[in-house]
């Protein structure tokens, strides 16, 4: 509700605001993720900029009613460009006491608290481990705009004519809540009605009707009871012209791979072993068999990586994905990929570590594993998407680099990006630059084939089985320059180690220089990577508006680093590297550029909030000022 832009409209009491951050929480079984997704899509269709943050328990069905069982979905929709799902909540919907006590802390003072009154009873208090009804606490009424709605009962009433069982009726209460939320924020019911019809219309017409009725009942409740008095409106955001859709990170990654496949004329072989939060890429890709996509659910991560390399040896587009622990297992095979110099993409959708860690939470703590998690000197390029939609572009770029340099490429996504969503401008793929792939055809019978000869990118030829005259053998032992035969020669080993390193380093000459938000010199530079983009961007923009000399460089290329980065770092008095780890990028920057970067680190399974970054930037600005004063005084 960042700003109230106008109050009331045609007779009704409607505030037009620039943005709303709302979180919907209930028990895992209450359908909160569905509710959130619908609200997001509807808002996106209304032309808002949106950003989401789903947050659900690790358990498939955590015990009902408990704090551990709470499932939440946060969405920010706005009439201006936004980059995060928001920090403090303008509105919080809670279906039970557990949801309330675990989420209330994020509701801003004066925010709207909507509670399903029917979910607040002794049984639930016990499950949630609260002594008394938290809704009754004086402080609640004083601090928030509380609306207690008997949703379960009202839903039951609304669908009573449809002959559903009690249990089935109650199941619809999330749609009632949805209707009410839609009314509150002036959302159209249309897209959700369409969704209900698509999903249940044919198979379960009764359920479809009940859900629709509940949705409408919720809306009417808001419209008629006047309990709320006031509703809100968020105008369309001034996004750049084009056709948009809402997209989730893992979906965008999957689509990007399909696109890269199409752009390069290579069929995609996606080989993986399920693991949270990467599995959805598999679920998505396996639906695109008609694009020539073959998905292979291997027996483990090692097999998945091996199969991707096998496919690449045959001339296919080999892609393998996992999360931290699974990537650890792939290390040896990735090293072989480096030695064989075959194109391949390895995706790590990072989660909280170490070990099994916090599987459903986000973290950025696998960067150094990506850099160094293999024996010997085995460098490979590393890219990181900065937002859900960016996954699409990163996948294509990774594939381009992989074939251009004949190398495995690593993509570091994370749980926050993977499950988050944002509006995405649909690209015109017919205009997209194609990816050029050449397989030598063995024309020259005079010259013996040199599988480890190199082109201007230091890439070796991608000669594939089936090509007469180019039969050759590859392997993990060090190989002789050009011929690829096994070689134990000391000078050759040095040459090959150096060449493999140089091949990756020189990519820096062919990627775009690092862009900066703000001036390219000044007091403070924020350097970030991956999923923290939105929060850092927003914080820097706000601080810039507040007059602080701060700029933002967000890295999408982590290895090699952009060639202008060193100069950039030294053009600022203070460099701060915020990361959801203990300082991994920071270490790489310090080592490479000898710049005394400060870290701003958080390892809590949660993304940064904008305000904690703003606080940090302000603190750094103040420190600089004090220093300056001190200097002048000194």
């Amino acid at each position: 509700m960042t700003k109230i832009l106008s109050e009331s409209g045609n007779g009704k009491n409607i505030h037009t605001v620039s943005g709303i951050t709302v979180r919907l929480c209930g028990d895992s079984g209450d359908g909160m993720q569905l509710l959130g997704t619908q609200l997001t899509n509807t808002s996106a269709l209304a032309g808002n900029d949106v950003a989401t943050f789903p947050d659900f328990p690790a358990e498939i069905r955590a015990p009902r009613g408990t704090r551990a069982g709470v499932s939440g979905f946060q969405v920010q929709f706005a009439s201006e460009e936004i980059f995060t799902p928001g920090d403090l909540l303008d509105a919080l919907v809670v279906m039970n006491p557990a949801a309330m006590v675990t989420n209330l802390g994020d509701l801003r003072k004066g925010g709207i608290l909507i509670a399903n009154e029917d979910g607040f009873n002794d049984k639930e208090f016990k499950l949630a481990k609260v002594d008394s009804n938290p809704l009754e606490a004086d402080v609640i009424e004083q601090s928030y705009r509380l609306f207690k709605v008997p949703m379960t009962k009202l839903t039951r009433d609304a669908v009573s004519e449809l002959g559903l069982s009690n249990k089935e009726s109650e199941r619809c209460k999330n749609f009632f809540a949805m209707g009410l939320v839609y009314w509150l924020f002036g959302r159209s019911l249309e897209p959700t009605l369409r969704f209900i019809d698509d999903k249940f219309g044919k198979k379960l017409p009764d359920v479809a009707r009940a859900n629709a009725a509940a949705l409408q009942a919720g809306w009417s409740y808001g419209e008629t009871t006047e309990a709320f008095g006031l509703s809100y409106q968020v105008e369309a955001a001034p996004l750049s012209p084009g056709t948009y859709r809402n997209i989730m990170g893992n979906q965008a990654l999957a689509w990007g791979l399909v696109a890269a496949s199409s752009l390069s004329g290579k069929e995609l072989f996606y080989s993986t072993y399920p693991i949270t939060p990467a599995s959805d890429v598999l679920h998505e890709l396996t639906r695109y068999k008609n694009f020539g996509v073959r998905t292979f659910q291997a027996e483990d991560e090692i097999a998945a990586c091996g199969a991707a390399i096998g496919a690449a040896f045959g001339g296919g587009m080999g892609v393998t994905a996992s999360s931290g622990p699974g990537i650890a297992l792939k290390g040896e095979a990735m090293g072989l990929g480096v030695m064989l110099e075959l194109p391949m993409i390895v995706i790590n959708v990072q989660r909280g570590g170490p070990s099994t860690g916090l599987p459903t939470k986000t973290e950025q703590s696998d960067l150094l594993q990506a850099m160094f998690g293999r024996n010997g000197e085995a460098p490979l390029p590393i890219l990181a998407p900065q937002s859900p939609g960016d996954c699409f572009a990163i996948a294509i770029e990774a594939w381009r680099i992989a074939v251009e340099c004949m190398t495995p490429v690593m993509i570091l996504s994370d749980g926050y990006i993977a499950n988050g969503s944002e509006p995405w401008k649909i690209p015109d793929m017919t205009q997209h630059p194609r990816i050029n792939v050449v397989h030598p055809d063995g024309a020259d019978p005079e010259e013996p084939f040199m599988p480890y000869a190199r082109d201007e990118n230091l890439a070796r030829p991608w000669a594939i089985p089936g090509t007469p005259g180019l039969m050759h053998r590859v392997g993990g032992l060090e190989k002789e320059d050009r011929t690829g035969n096994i070689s134990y020669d000391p000078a050759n080993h040095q040459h090959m180690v150096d060449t493999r390193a140089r091949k990756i380093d020189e990519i820096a000459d062919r990627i775009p220089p690092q862009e900066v938000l703000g001036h390219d010199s000044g007091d403070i530079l924020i350097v970030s990577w991956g999923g923290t983009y939105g929060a850092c961007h927003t914080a820097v923009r706000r601080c810039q508006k507040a007059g602080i000399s701060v700029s933002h460089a967000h890295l999408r290329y982590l290895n090699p680093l952009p060639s202008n980065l060193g100069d950039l770092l030294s053009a600022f008095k203070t460099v701060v590297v915020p990361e959801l780890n203990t300082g991994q990028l920071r270490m790489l920057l310090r080592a490479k550029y000898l710049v005394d970067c400060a870290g701003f680190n958080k390892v809590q399974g949660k993304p940064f909030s904008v305000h904690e970054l703003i606080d940090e930037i302000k603190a750094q600005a103040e420190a600089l000022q004090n220093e300056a004063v001190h200097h002048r005084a000194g």
Partner: protein
Amino acid sequence: MTLPVLKAADFASTQEVRWCPGCGDYSILAQMKKVLPELGVPREKIVFISGIGCSSRFPYYMNTYGMHSIHGRAPTFATGLKSTRPDLMVWVITGDGDALSIGGNHFIHMLRRNLDINVVLFNNRIYGLTKGQYSPTSSEGQITKSTPMGAIDHPLSPLSVALGAEATFVARSIDAYVTHLGETLRRAAEHKGTSLVEVYQNCNVFNDGAMAYAQEKSQRADNVIELEHGKPLIFGKDRDKGIRLVGSHLEVVSLADTAIDDLLIHDERAANPSIQMMLARMRYPEMPEPIGVLRAVAGVPTYDDQINHQVELAKAKHGIGDLQALVSGGDTWVVK
């Protein structure tokens, strides 16, 4: 256009062969080079993929495409390759350690998926390349570098494991018995589905003579029984002994007092592998050990066929994927 007729020598790469003099690997290499030209598959359509071990050096010596991969993982590379390139003839070359120790899981899963590939497992019952530790096929009590007081693991039989994993083609041969080896490799190549050939291979440096009872011509006839589909199980230097099924087990009988008709007739095509399992469990010295094709079941769908079939089905059903339609589909809105 007729294909040029190739000879064994055409399958030799330029690389010097670097096994120990006298190693059984040489004979397997020779038979492979002899058999391949007979199959009529052009060299460039053949790929050898190996893990790590002495045996896994094999691909370097073949003038085909090849990959010397990492220890135990050859089946995984082969799976990715064959799934995407069903037009290729793929051979996996592995050792007893490579296939059954570190690679045991991939080995099983390759077999159950029944990719149309051929696997040759060089069983020398020892780790050759790392200089003589015991392997999963080493005998109980075997003294090796890592078991100075004798191995205490109960050995695995590659054939039993394969049968337990629903393999469709399971065979065994012997490095020194070259005609049999050549023929067995040919049978493996011809089978559609994953073909496993275990080859008794002498490591004359670290486990010399461990299988001499089967390798040495003088002993072979009495200690080994050659399986032939539809034929009774007869063996012995004088072909005077046979195998009979009694209830649920097999026993050696003398043909002096048992009629040939009472002998077990080998059925490599039996869908139910129970008898084949009994054969796999016959062990020297109690029993003669079977060589030849234990199991060859046709008609089981292969993974490569199926994965590609689903792609074709999907294309037929939904039309060939349209990238622009994909990204433009679903709920969209226009910003002007």
